[in-house]
């Protein structure tokens, strides 16, 4: 199932507050996956495999913000984790402008994988900051140990990244000294330190106390305004409506519906999308 590559700008834009700006009208997606299939084998030999993705295609163009929504177990996290090959799909294609990293069972080698991942940032639900390093070192690590930048230069950039997420005063703090919201902001600074072409967000606010969600969404909003290409798995439908050019509703491992937020979130065509969004938006 191939998806519609029409830029989201053609959709009627209604009531977007801190809107995504003018969506870019380009041709080549920054990242795309086609017809991804993924099943997790059973733990024991007699258990059946669980099929999670049944042929999902998805892409994001330059500056585009794509929100992936769906019930738990619909395959959202698996899909986004496949996009930087933290999970290896069974079949399908994963490619960016520069790399084809997966093509029907053939995975790029270790060297290529490392190069590819430097162009794809990822923010996790559980933050996954390194507990034995300060905030500044967390952000510097991919620069010093990944691309071989000097420690001085890397720290310099780490400082500006942390300033950007509003944590310029927490450079020397260790993760356990920070609130969940602050930790996630450090994680975002770390994910964008290498200036990736796209950032994947895997439920970035799901592990946060409600009062800390706002500060993380604010940082993501600013990133979006700067034109960063973003793919966001989220349960924050209001945020998805506000920020995204396109919303993809995943159901039982398939794209059940996709389109501009006004369609998918406010007037969904698919019955399962309707029942899903009504729970959240109180229709």
């Amino acid at each position, binding site marked *: 199932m191939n998806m519609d590559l029409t830029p989201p700008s053609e959709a009627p834009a209604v009531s977007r507050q801190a809107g995504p700006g003018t969506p870019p009208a380009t041709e080549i997606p920054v990242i795309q996956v086609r017809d991804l299939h993924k099943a997790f084998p059973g733990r024991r030999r007699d258990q059946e495999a669980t099929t999670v993705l049944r042929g999902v295609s998805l892409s994001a163009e330059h500056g585009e913000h794509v929100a992936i929504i769906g019930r738990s177990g619909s395959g959202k996290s698996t899909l986004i984790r496949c996009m930087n090959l933290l999970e290896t799909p069974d079949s399908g294609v994963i490619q960016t402008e520069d790399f084809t990293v997966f093509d029907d069972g053939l995975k790029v080698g*270790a060297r290529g994988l490392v190069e590819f991942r430097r162009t794809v940032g990822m923010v996790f639900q559980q933050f996954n900051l390194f507990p034995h390093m300060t905030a*500044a070192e967390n952000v510097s690590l*991919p620069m010093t*140990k990944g691309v071989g930048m000097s420690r001085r230069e890397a720290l310099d950039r780490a400082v500006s990244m942390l300033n950007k997420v509003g944590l310029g005063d927490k450079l020397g703090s260790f993760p356990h000294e920070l609130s969940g919201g602050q930790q996630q902001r450090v994680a975002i600074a770390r994910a964008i330190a290498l200036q990736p072409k796209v950032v994947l967000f895997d439920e970035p606010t799901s592990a946060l106390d409600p009062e800390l969600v706002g500060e993380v969404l604010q940082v993501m909003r600013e990133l979006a305004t700067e034109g960063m290409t973003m793919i966001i798995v989220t349960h924050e439908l209001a945020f998805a409506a506000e920020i995204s050019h396109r919303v993809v509703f995943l159901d039982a491992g398939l794209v059940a519906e996709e389109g501009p937020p006004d369609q998918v979130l406010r007037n969904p065509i698919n019955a399962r999308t309707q029942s899903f969004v009504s729970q959240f938006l109180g229709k």
Partner: protein
Amino acid sequence: MGSLYWPTLGYATLHTLEYTGLGIAGSMILGLVIALMKVSKWRAIRWIAIAYTELLKNTPLLVVLFVIYFGLPSVGIILSRLISGGLALTLCYAAYLSEIFRAGLQGVPNGQREAGYALGLSTARVYWNIILPQTFRLSLAATGNMVVDILKTTSLISAIGGGELLTSAENITAATFEPMKVYLIVGGIYFAMCFPLSRLVVWYESRLKSGTNRRRHRRRLEAELREIGAVA
């Protein structure tokens, strides 16, 4: 036993420390390698590591030592007492340490590994900079006990006349017929080495827990940040 024997005991103590040093260094390196094999994605490698551990964990060190020192010469491999003793300690304690390190490796949440990979770090970097420092903290207490245990177990090397403390105690006893006195003195020397060592481990652990190391670490970072003019 006159003052005549103190220099002998001094040398013997140095030999004990030599065996201990070899045993610690060897078993830590081998133990880490085997622990990494145990978390390998290849079943065959995991299997080899498990087989090794079970084999050495369930064989007396003395037997391993005899196989190395008395057995190997029959196939043309002749090793000195020092190397034989160090090797026996290495092989046996690597089995125990590999279990400790494996638990430490598995105690590091998988998200740490994933975050490292997602940042475009190589597997070697992920392990060296992210996983192993955390494994070290998790394994510290149990590893410290093993280190003390290795020091005490060097006494078994007296069975091949290894020249360490217990060997020399036996020799002195044979000459002076004062076993009570000699063995008590030697026991005291072992204690005098082991006790500070185990306290050292406890102290270092509490230091890690209390965050003293983190504070020092932070001060160094802050100095660097001042240098690049990032903070006042």
